Each structure stands twice: as C-alpha cells, then as structure tokens.
C-alpha cells in the first residue's frame, strides 16, 4: 500500500474511534445540541416578540423574527461543537494515548484528521437537529435545493475551520478544563455579530467589531441563502474567512502535534 492510502486508512481508523466514543458516550454530543436548541427557544418563544418588533421592517425583511434569528442560531450550533473537539483532543493528549500513537508507525496526520472529520460530522448532525427544531417552531426558509446545498457547504466549511482551530487548542491546552474554556469566546462571538440583532442597532465600537468579525458575513450569507435577504459580497468574505481559519488551525495543530515533549 502507498503512503497516501495508509494515511487514509489510519485516518479512517481514528475517525471510527472518535465516532464510537460519540455514540457510546453521547452526553457531550447531546450538550452540544441542547445549547443552541435552548437559545432558539429563548430567542423565539421568550424574547421573540420584543426583538421582532424592534427590528421589524429592517433586516428581518417581511418574515417573522424566527426567520431572522434561526440562521444565526444554526451557526451557533456549528460553533458549539468546537468545545467538544478541543476537549476530546486534550483528553487523548493528557491520557497518554497520543504518545502511544506517536511511537507507532502510524500516519502522523491521521490522529488530527480523525478528530477533525469526526467533529465536522457531529457538528453537521447537530446543525440538522437545530434546523429541524427551527422548522417546528415556525422557521419558514424559502431556499431552493441549490441554496440549501450551498448553505450546507458553507456550514461544512465553518465546521471544518472551527474543528482545526479546536484541535490545535486541545493540543496546546494543559488540561481538558482549560481546553473547554479557551474556545468559549468562539461560541460567544455570534452574539456580537448579526446572529440575534442587526449590528447597526449596536453602539459604534461594538458595531464596528460586529461588522468585521468572521461570523457576521457567514451569518449574512446563511440568512441570504435560506431566507432570501441580500448577500452582497458576504459570501466571498465568509469563504475567505473559513479558508484562512482552516489553514491557520491546520498548521497550528500540525505544529503543536509535531512539537517535542508531552506538552
């Protein structure tokens, strides 16, 4: 067998291991789903009427508030998987099994690839659940099949970027507790973006941040694809962000994995 097919085989082995963990101990996966579902309920059933009235006729377009907020919450579902990935990578590191893999003639990238692909698959499953709940709550997207596919592609790109960043965080964090804390800002970022309310309703400094942070173009693109709001150049900016974050996370994680010692 060639090196490439060995690498693929090792990565598949690592992926199987991670999926087995997720299926056997679903509490982490469940908590990843529960969080955005709670958010969705909170922002539609509890705050929905006030927030909807506040931005009616504006960015929310003709639809109800759930049509505005659902794409933002869907993105949150994509970010919340980051914590789980960082923790599981860090647990593997602190329990010593990573060192075992490193002393074996195993493809060097396979450990990370297994975690990242596993993370993307779990994230997409969570996203599907959240979209399902949103539909039950009255989310009415007008997306065509092509737009749905584009939205799925964008969410996959986001999940991939965050999975690589989280894998790197998991490797550099000293304890699983630290690993679960470091990605917290990531899950909080959509709030200071256009996930819940349009940035132009925010004070100047925050508005500037909200407009230029990576998740806003992603949310705007998602919202445009699903509910038909204007996308403009947000699509390209979103893809550029995803590419940049994926590359950064990838090289960071590969470097952290190669770095000598147990740290």
């Amino acid at each position, binding site marked *: *067998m060639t090196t490439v097919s*060995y690498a693929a*085989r*090792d990565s598949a*082995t690592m992926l*199987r*291991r991670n999926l*087995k*963990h997720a299926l*056997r*101990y679903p509490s982490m996966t469940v908590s990843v789903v529960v969080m955005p579902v709670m958010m969705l309920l909170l922002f539609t059933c509890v705050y929905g009427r006030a927030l909807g009235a506040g931005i009616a006729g504006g960015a929310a377009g003709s639809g109800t508030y759930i049509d505005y907020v659902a794409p933002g919450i869907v993105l949150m579902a994509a970010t919340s998987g980051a914590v789980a990935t960082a923790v599981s990578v860090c647990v593997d590191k602190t*329990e*010593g*099994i990573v*060192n*075992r*893999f*490193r*002393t*074996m*003639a*195993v493809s060097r990238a396979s450990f990370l690839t297994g975690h990242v692909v596993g993370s993307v698959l779990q994230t997409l499953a969570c996203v599907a659940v959240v979209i399902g709940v949103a539909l039950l709550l009255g989310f009415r997207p007008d997306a065509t099949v092509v737009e749905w596919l584009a939205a799925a592609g964008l969410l996959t790109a986001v999940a991939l970027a965050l999975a690589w960043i989280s894998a790197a965080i998991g490797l550099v964090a000293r304890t699983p507790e630290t690993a679960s804390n470091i990605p917290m800002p990531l899950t909080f970022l959509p709030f200071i973006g256009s996930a819940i309310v349009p940035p132009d309703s925010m004070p100047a400094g925050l508005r500037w941040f909200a407009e230029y942070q990576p998740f806003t173009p992603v949310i705007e693109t998602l919202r445009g694809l699903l509910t038909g709001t204007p996308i403009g150049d947000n699509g390209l900016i979103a893809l550029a962000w995803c590419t940049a974050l994926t590359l950064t996370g990838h090289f960071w994680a590969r470097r952290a994995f190669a770095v*000598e*010692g*147990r740290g």
Partner: protein
Amino acid sequence: MNAVPASSASSASSATVVRPAIAAAGMSKSYGDTTVLDGIDLTVPEGTVFALLGPNGAGKTTTVQILSTLIAPTAGEARIAGHDLVREAGAVRSVIGVTGQFSAVDNLLTAEENLLLMADLHHLDRREGRRRATALLSRFELAESTAKPVATYSGGMRRKLDLAMTLMGRPRVIFLDEPTTGLDPRSRRIMWEIIRGLVVDDGVTILLTTQYLEEADQLADRIALLDHGRIVAEGTAEELKRRIPGGHVRLRFADAAQLARAASLFGSVATGHPDNLTLNVPSDGGITTLRAVLDTLDAASLGAEALTVHTPDLDDVFLALTGRPQLTSPPTSPLTSPKGQAR
C-alpha cells in the same frame, strides 16, 4: 565504565557484526539551561533485558522518550535495531513498542476494542487482528472483562492491557518506563512474570526503567545506574552489588555488656551502637554468612535478642556510588501526573 556502543563506529551493513538492539552514544537532552541527560552511552544486545535504575528526575523517562522517538536528543545519536533514531524514525517506530508509566489506553473503549484499534493501526487484516487480540487477552488474563470499558479497570489490569496493546504490533524492542510503579505487590509479581515471558518466549529486547533495585535485580541482565542525567555505574546485578557495602546483619542485645562482648567477637568490621544496643555486622544477606554470624555468637554463648537482615537497596547504591543519600520522594502513586516526572 560506560560501555562504548560497538556499532556506532562500525554500523555499516557488515553481516558478521552482531548488531545490538539498542546502541546509543553521547545522548544528551537539555531544556534551556537545564541539562536532563548528559551524554548517555548504551548498548543492549538483542534478546536481553537492560534496566535503567535511578531516582525520580535522573533522566530515565527522558531516555525512553528519546529512544522511542517521542522527543529529539539535543546531541548524540542512537540506533534501534540498526535504524537511526532521527533519520529513520519511521523504521524505528515499526520495530519498537512502548509502555510508559502513563497508561496509554483508550478509557472509553473495552480491552478488546483497544487491541483491535492497535491491530487497525498496524494494518493487520481483520482475522489476524482478532487472532492476536484473543491470544493476548487470554495470555494476560483479561478475557473475562473484555466487555467492560477500560475506565473501570484496576491499575494492574490497565498496565497489563497497556502492555498487551504494545505487543499487538509484535515489536522487536520494547521500552517499559517504570512498568510497576504504583502497582500493588501482587500485580508487580504478575508484571515481572509477563516481562520474563516476553524475553524467553518471544525473544524480544527490553529496556526498562525502574526506581527499585529489586526489580532491576529480578529482571535485568545488565543494569545502568542513572543519576543527574549520567550513567554512574553499569554492570550485572552481581557486579553492582559487590560494589555496595550497605548490606549487614543487625543484632540487638539485652545490655551494654553483651554488646561489648559481641563487638569484640566480630572485631573491627562490626560497628556497635551503644545507644540502642545494636551491632551491625557487614553481610551480603546470604544464608552462609548469616549462619557464620549465629555460629560465632553460639560459640561464645551469647544470645541476641533480635536479628534483622538489611540487604542493599537503592539508597545504599546511591550512597556508595555518589557519596550522598538518594534525594527522592517515595514511589510515585499512579494518581500523580506523569508530567511531573517527565523531565
């Protein structure tokens, strides 16, 4: 006194030279200003057990980490089964197996799943993987608990599983980093039996590290004493023990008069301690010398109240070879992070 690696000069592929399984020359490791390993030379012939004996912080784990390709040496070089550690790391990894003091097992899987994970990573076909896993589970008496996740295992079982995982790839050279630290005495005996079996049945080469003189004595063909990153002595257990004057028989007497009479019987080799009425007579702890001591007492109609045999231990080795007591904490519990000891 350090053995010069026979192969470092003549490592060219001359088939007549017996190739050592492990050959290291001038291996050093420092982190910034801290020198952890200071020029280690090692030669371990194939099919033998070599023990690195030393206290915490001596550099044992660092040596294993370097030889198992986990970290790169700052200086020096080493070959494992003829493969250069740095330039042919992949080839080295395919012949070695490592069981560290960290239990490198997947806690969320069962024992069998852990072994099959190793089989997949060694690219074994499914049937061969199952065959090896089944054989190892019964050999290590883990078969009855295969269905439980490893998180529920005792320390001894985890260590056995860890070693079984290492053996799935049929390594020719095995590194065991403190294989029995933190184990109860019974588990320790079982682990010793397993290690002996590996050499006898499978013909592998083993480099193990330990803090226990007894362990090195029980298992190793040759022992190197490591202190502050240097090898301070190397030889067989017998050779090392001959250099250790720490063994003695301690006799306790009823009163100072008897102690004085006994002291005169044994002459200047014995040291008396009038404050606790004891006399230390140098001894290797063997039956013959013990009998000689008792015979001497009997002949003089002297009765000792108590007798204890003190055999050389790591402290004595250290005292003898470094001129200072061993500065270590008690044996590490399995709960302490391996990180604390790693460097």
